[in-house]
C-alpha cells in the first residue's frame, strides 16, 4: 500500500499535447476514480502511472519515490486491462501465478497465494481452464486475480467493466468495492461511466480534454459542481441548463419566465447566467410555473417527465406517479435551495 502523488504531469504524443498539467493526490488506501468522456486522457494518465507511457513533464511519486524513469516492474503496481489481457495459452492458475514464477517464488508460496486469490474471487473451480473457456465475467475476475496475487502497492484498473453486460457490471461494481474494503490497497480506477464513479469512489477526479475539472468526494461533486462541465457530467439524468439573467434576486429565462433562486450572489445581478437544475430537484406545485408535458416515462419507482418550459425542454423526475397525457399542462417548482448558478461566459459556479 502506498500513496500516489501526481504533480503537474504533462503528456504529448509527438507534438500533440494530450495531458496539460494534472495534479492529483491519492492517499494510502484510497479508492480514486478518474472519470471523463472518451478521449480525455484517462487511460494515458493511468498508463503513465503504470510506466507503460513515459512522462513528458511533471512528476509521479509512488510511496514517496519519484517513478518517472523507473521501469514498470520496479513500481510494484498491478493493472487490470480493459480487454483483460489474459495470456491465452496459460490456464487460469498459470495466468495468476505468472508474475510469481518470473520472480522465482517457491512453488508452495505460489500455490497458497493463487488458491487464496481464487477463493476470494470464486475461481477455485476454474483454475484448470484456459481463458477461451471462460465467460466475460469470469475472465474479468481472472484479470483481478492476477492483480491480487501480486499483492502490489497500487491497483490500476482501466475500464474493467466496460465489456460486461449491464447486470453483471452492477454486480462486479459491488464486488470490486468489497474487495477494496478487504484488501485496502490504493486503487486508481478509470471509467467513463459516472454512475460507476459515484457508487465506488472515495474520491472522484473529473477529467476533460487533458485537465482536471474537479476533484472531490462523490457527493461533493454532486452537491457543489465547480463548473457547467462537472454539473452536466455527474448525475443521471443530467442536469438541465437554462440560460437567462438574474433580476431582483430571481432568475429570468430568455422567454421571460421567472424561476426562484435561493439567494443569488450580489455579483450575479443583471449578468447572463446559466441556471442549473437537477431533474430530481423539481416538485409538483399548484403555485409553480406552468409547463407542457412532452413525454412521460414511468419506471415504477419514479416517473421521468420531459416538459417544455417556454421553448426549452427540461427533464424532470418525480417520486410520485403522474397520470397525465402528453400535451397536458402541469405546474412545477424547482427547489430554490438546490439550484445551481453558473457564469455564462466562463461556465464557473457563482457562489452565493
Amino acid at each position: 500500500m502506498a500513496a500516489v502523488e501526481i504533480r503537474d504531469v504533462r503528456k504529448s504524443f509527438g507534438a500533440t499535447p494530450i495531458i496539460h498539467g494534472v495534479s492529483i493526490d491519492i492517499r494510502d488506501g484510497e479508492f480514486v476514480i478518474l472519470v471523463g468522456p472518451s478521449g480525455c486522457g484517462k487511460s494515458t494518465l493511468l498508463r503513465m502511472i503504470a510506466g507503460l507511457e513515459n512522462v513528458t513533464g511533471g512528476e509521479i511519486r509512488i510511496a514517496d519515490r519519484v517513478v518517472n524513469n523507473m521501469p514498470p516492474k520496479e513500481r510494484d503496481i498491478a493493472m487490470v486491462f480493459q480487454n483483460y489481457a489474459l495470456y491465452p495459452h496459460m490456464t487460469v492458475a498459470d495466468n495468476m501465478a505468472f508474475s510469481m514464477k518470473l520472480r522465482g517464488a517457491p512453488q508452495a508460496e505460489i500455490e497458497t497465494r493463487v488458491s487464496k486469490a481464487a477463493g476470494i474471487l470464486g475461481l477455485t473451480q476454474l483454475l484448470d481452464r484456459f481463458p477461451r473457456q471462460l465467460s466475460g465475467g469470469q475472465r474479468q475476475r481472472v484479470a483481478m486475480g492476477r492483480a491480487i496475487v501480486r499483492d502490489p502497492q497500487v491497483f490500476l484498473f482501466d475500464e474493467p467493466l466496460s465489456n460486461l453486460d449491464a447486470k453483471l457490471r452492477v454486480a462486479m461494481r459491488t464486488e470490486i468495492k468489497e474487495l477494496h474494503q478487504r484488501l485496502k490497497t490504493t486503487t486508481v480506477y478509470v471509467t467513463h461511466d459516472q454512475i460507476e464513479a459515484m457508487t465506488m469512489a472515495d474520491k472522484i477526479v473529473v477529467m476533460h480534454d487533458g485537465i482536471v475539472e474537479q476533484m472531490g468526494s462523490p457527493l461533493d461533486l454532486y452537491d457543489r459542481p465547480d463548473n457547467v462541465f462537472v454539473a452536466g457530467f455527474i448525475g443521471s439524468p443530467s442536469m438541465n441548463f437554462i440560460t437567462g439573467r438574474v433580476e431582483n434576486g430571481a432568475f429570468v429565462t430568455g422567454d421571460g419566465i421567472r424561476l426562484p433562486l435561493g439567494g443569488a450572489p450580489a455579483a450575479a445581478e443583471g449578468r447572463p447566467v446559466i441556471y442549473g437544475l437537477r431533474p430530481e430537484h423539481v416538485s409538483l406545485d399548484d403555485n409553480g410555473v406552468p409547463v407542457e408535458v412532452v413525454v412521460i416515462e414511468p419506471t415504477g419507482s419514479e416517473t421521468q417527465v420531459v416538459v417544455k418550459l417556454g421553448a426549452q425542454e427540461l427533464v424532470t423526475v418525480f417520486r410520485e406517479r403522474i397520470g397525465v397525457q402528453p400535451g397536458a399542462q402541469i405546474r412545477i417548482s424547482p427547489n430554490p435551495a438546490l439550484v445551481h448558478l453558473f457564469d455564462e461566459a466562463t461556465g464557473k459556479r457563482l457562489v452565493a
Partner: protein
Amino acid sequence: MATTAALSRPAPRETTLAERILQDRNVLGILFMLPAAAFLFLFLTYPLGLGVYLGFTDTRIGRAGVWVGFENYESLWGDSVFWLSVFNTFLYTFVASILKFMLGLWLALLLNEHLPFKALIRAIVLLPWVVPTVLSAIAFWWIFDAQFSIVTWSLQKLGLVQGSINWLGDPQIARASVIAANVWRGIPFVAITLLAGLQTIPPSLHEAATLDGATSWQRFWHITLPMLSPIIAVVMTFSVLFTFTDFQLIYVLTRGGPLNATHLMATLSFQRAIPGGQLGEGAAIAVAMVPFLLGAIMFSYFGLQRRRWQQGGQD
C-alpha cells in the same frame, strides 16, 4: 372464396425427367465440379500416376519399357550415389530449414519494431522471394565464382583469406554454398509470414507481462513464442516441403556436383531420367521422395492441430 384461392395458385406444370435430374442438388454439384476435376486429373493425378507407373518399368527415352516390378528400387538400394543424394537432401533440408527459421524469426521480430521506412524495408525483404529462382541462382553463380567471386574479393580486401575460395568446386564448401543460397531465398517467406503472426499478438499481452515483471527475453519466451507456435508449424511445414523438393537452385548452381556432393533426390532423379535417358529409374527416385514428404505432412498434421488453449468458447 376457396375456389378463387385454388385458382390463383399456379397450376403444377409437367416437369420432364431431364429437368428433374438437372435440378437435383447432387447432380448439379457434380456437374459444377467436373471442370475442376478434369483439370486436376489432367495435370496432377495423371502425371503422378504416370510417374509411379514408370518407376515400375524399365522405360528409356525413345523406348517403351516393360513392367519390371521392384527392380528399379532394388538397384537403387545398392546404389551409393542414390544414398548420397538422400543424405544430401536431409542435410540440405535440415540445415537450411533451421537457418531459415532462426533468421526469419529474427528478421520478423526486427520488422515488428518501430523502424523508420518500415514499409520500404518490408518490400525489400520480400525481394529474394519475388525474383525468379533461376535469375537469383545466376546471381549466386557470380557470387560463388571460383575466380571472380565478390565474397572472395571482399574477404581478400579485409585480409581474411589469401588465395581464392573454390565455392562450388570443393564438396564441403559447395554444400554450404547451396544451403546459403537456399536460405537467402527462403527467408522472406518465413519472415513475412511470422511477421503477420506477430502482429496478431495484442500489445496489451506484452504490457501485462511487463507489469508482471518479465524482461524482454522472458516476454519472447513466455508470450511471443507460444502465441506464434501455430503459425510456426504452418510456415515450417511449407518451408520443409519446398526445401526437400528443391531443384532449380541446385540445377543452376552445381548440377549436383562436385562429386555428387550437392545432388539432391530431385536433381538426381532428373539427371538419371532426362540427360541419362533412364526414365524408369528417375521416376523411381522421385517416387522414393513420397514417403518422406508424407512423413513431413503427417508431422504438420499433428503439429497444426489446434492447441488446447485455442479450443472452445469464442472471443
